[in-house]
């Protein structure tokens, strides 16, 4: 885009008209990179499958009240542990609640957790990563060593520690998952920024006297987007898995919220008697995580220039 400034310079040259003409023909051939990526993505069958899975769960969550006549929290102890049937597609759990209803409402929770945890980690991780990578020196040392410290713990253990400090609730689980993902984004962005910092166009911008803030916002950040987008998509999956793990341990969503990991934990005593109480939430977790991973992997192929053949 900065190329537009070039004609000004060109005007000083002897044959500006001819040069301009040449330049225009070049521009026609270049399609915007995102269009290219979408094209690539659509060719990737796995990515499309992942996309369909996610869209399915998004609609399942959004339309939950229309899809089912039951409430996710109303107990009906007379109808406990019913096998799947026309009335209860996925059966009922041990408190007589319709499992399909709980899966549908649970989709809202899981997708929200993914969204907010990833957004949080992305915002803070990117800011810290850019600052560390661009300014270097002691700021880099402080931020990078903090990341190293956080990454030294197994992530789920760190999440458990954070929840233990804050208290068990879905919000705190979300915060914990965001925190454990900050260094993941941070390191990614930092390494990208360090390599960008040495690029000629950044040098040029600096030489022109552009302020650091403007360079970061207009040059560094846009050029770091590709790995961030890929990592966000993959991070969605792991965030949902982490939330389910915390829920399973009783550290995430609290009853009567229909969080999938919690549903698994609540039903594990019925693995022999009523396996459907475990299969539905288990498969749901699997599908959503799989969906995000497939998309993320496809995106990486599509966006990352190094992967292009």
């Amino acid at each position, binding site marked *: 885009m900065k190329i537009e400034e070039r004609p000004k310079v060109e005007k000083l040259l002897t044959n500006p008209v001819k040069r301009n003409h040449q330049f225009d023909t070049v521009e026609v051939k270049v399609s915007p990179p995102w269009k290219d990526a979408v094209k690539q993505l659509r060719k990737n069958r796995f990515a499309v499958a992942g996309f369909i899975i996610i869209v399915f769960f998004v609609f399942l969550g959004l339309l939950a009240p229309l899809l089912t006549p039951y409430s996710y*929290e109303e107990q009906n102890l007379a109808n406990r542990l019913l096998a799947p049937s026309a009335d209860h597609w996925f059966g009922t759990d041990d408190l007589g609640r319709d499992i399909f209803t709980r899966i549908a409402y649970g989709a809202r929770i899981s997708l929200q957790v993914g969204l907010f945890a990833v957004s949080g980690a992305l915002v803070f991780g990117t800011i810290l990563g850019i600052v560390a990578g661009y300014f270097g020196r002691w700021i880099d040392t402080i931020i990078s060593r903090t990341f190293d410290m956080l990454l030294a713990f197994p992530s789920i253990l760190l999440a458990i520690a954070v929840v233990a400090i804050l208290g068990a609730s879905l919000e705190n689980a979300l915060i914990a998952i965001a925190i454990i993902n900050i260094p993941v984004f941070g390191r990614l962005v930092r390494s990208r920024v360090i390599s960008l910092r040495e690029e000629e166009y950044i040098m040029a911008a600096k030489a022109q006297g552009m302020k650091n803030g403007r360079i970061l916002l207009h040059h560094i950040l846009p050029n770091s987007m590709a790995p961030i987008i890929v990592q966000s998509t993959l991070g969605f999956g792991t965030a949902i898995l982490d939330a389910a793990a915390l829920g399973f341990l009783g550290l995430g969503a609290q009853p009567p919220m229909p969080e999938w990991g919690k549903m698994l934990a609540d039903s594990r005593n019925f693995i022999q008697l009523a396996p459907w109480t475990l299969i539905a939430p288990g498969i749901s*977790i699997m599908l959503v995580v799989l969906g995000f991973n497939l998309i993320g992997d496809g995106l990486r192929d599509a966006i990352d220039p190094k992967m292009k053949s």
Partner: protein
Amino acid sequence: MKFKTAFVRVFILALVLVLAACGGGGEEGSSKEGSKSESKGDQVLVFARGGDSSSLDFASTSDGESSRVTKQIFESLLDFDKDSFNVVPGLAHDWDVSEDGLSYKFYLEEGVTFHDGTDFNAEAVKVNFERWSDPDHQYAFKEDGYAYPLYGTMFGGYKGDEDHVIKEINVVGDHEIEFVLTQPLGSFLQNMGMHYFAITSPKALEDFGAKINENPVGTGPFKFVSWSKDDSIVLEKNENYRKEGLPKLDKVVYKVVPDNAARLIALRSGEIDIMDDVNPDDAAGVEADNALNLYTRGENNVGFLGFNTAKEPLNNKLVRQAINHSIEREKIADALYAGYATPAVNPLPPGYMGYNDEVEGYKFDADKAKELLAEAGYPDGFEIDLWVMPVSRPYMPDPEKAAEIIQDNLSKIGVKVKIVREEWAPYLEKTSKGDQELYLLGWSGSNGDPDYFLSSLTHGESVGGENRTFYDNAELNELLDAAKLSVDQEERARLYKEAQEIISEDSPMVTLVHSKPLVATRSAVKNYQPHPSTSDSLVEVELE
């Protein structure tokens, strides 16, 4: 890479689910031969339970998982029948009680030796009782954190305390011992049958000191071999056991399998022989299985929803009564206990002396509950914390689910419940300090005496200990004291009945159910009889 690991994780999760779901049938008997072939002919019994023992010094803990094991290693002066709290001879074959109820003489078995070869005699009995009653005794190990709370509860305190009932212990002969009391104690003989007052070898106390909790030496049918924490405790046959031909088993292994469902799978595969705490929902399946036997323990407990009566708004009796009216006990008994429980009206289980069947209790009535709440000044309800214990107990196999049902019940009268979890040890500690508002807990009997239930749970003096409701009613305290000190059992029964009326009216807790805990064994296990105290004697058990 990222994609790969996450995918593998998800795949494994799915695989585990599918495998676990299919694991139900088809495996019986296959692994049994393999696991035990090396010890063919040996009678090795594996008893699986949910948690490990906290200590093998029975007197310094009130942990049922501890006395379940030490019951095989130690004996007390008196014992209980196999399936009830009827007192029968133990290490004392006979006893006399004086007219005034102030002197008890026990005649001890002769020729009995401890597992370390030393003689069992009256002196050994005296050393043990002095160890519990005198905090400064050389074997009390006070500096090492030992305390004997059950001794204090059952005998009115410790040496030097005003209410301590055991004045002196006289060694009359080598095998004759006399207990002199300061005042009559209605439950004295029942107490002597409690396993918490079994006799340890004085030499072992001398040799092991404060390590006695890992080196139990008694006179019982089995000797201690090894203990690997949170996994298993191994006992072997005491060849010199005082009863001819017993025990029948060569080896007993107490194994920890925390998850109820996993334990049942292990039982089906023959990996274990007896499992404690069957999920009530699995009972029907166990009963239908020819390779397994299902047993129920006697109703000897109460599971309840306690109120911290020291905190607003639970200090208001009307609020407590309103909550009491809003809980659907019958549904809880059906849903969480599969019917192996009776909705509870009194804290005392039916069948106990002095059980008051005229107390009406609180029938489920949401309208009445709302009226009472409005009368108490909370027409729109309030928000409140409900503490839930993290472990399955005999009186409450699934506390988390009980909490969810209660949460649902209370939401209908406008009370919004937040569920609070805490680890088991801090749970007990913090609730006795009064950090909680509503809380779930229960109580299991261990001597068959009503005092053990009513005084522990509701007497003002138990506040700070087992009375976690902070309920303290002077009139009730007096009744319970009088009943404790009387030796006239009819009089005691009358006083306890009156006490239950007061408790019901004041409503310091919602008594939920008396459960019949379930035990399952392989059908090869013979002569097994679960005891209502949960400490089953394995002395006569054999494997076919």
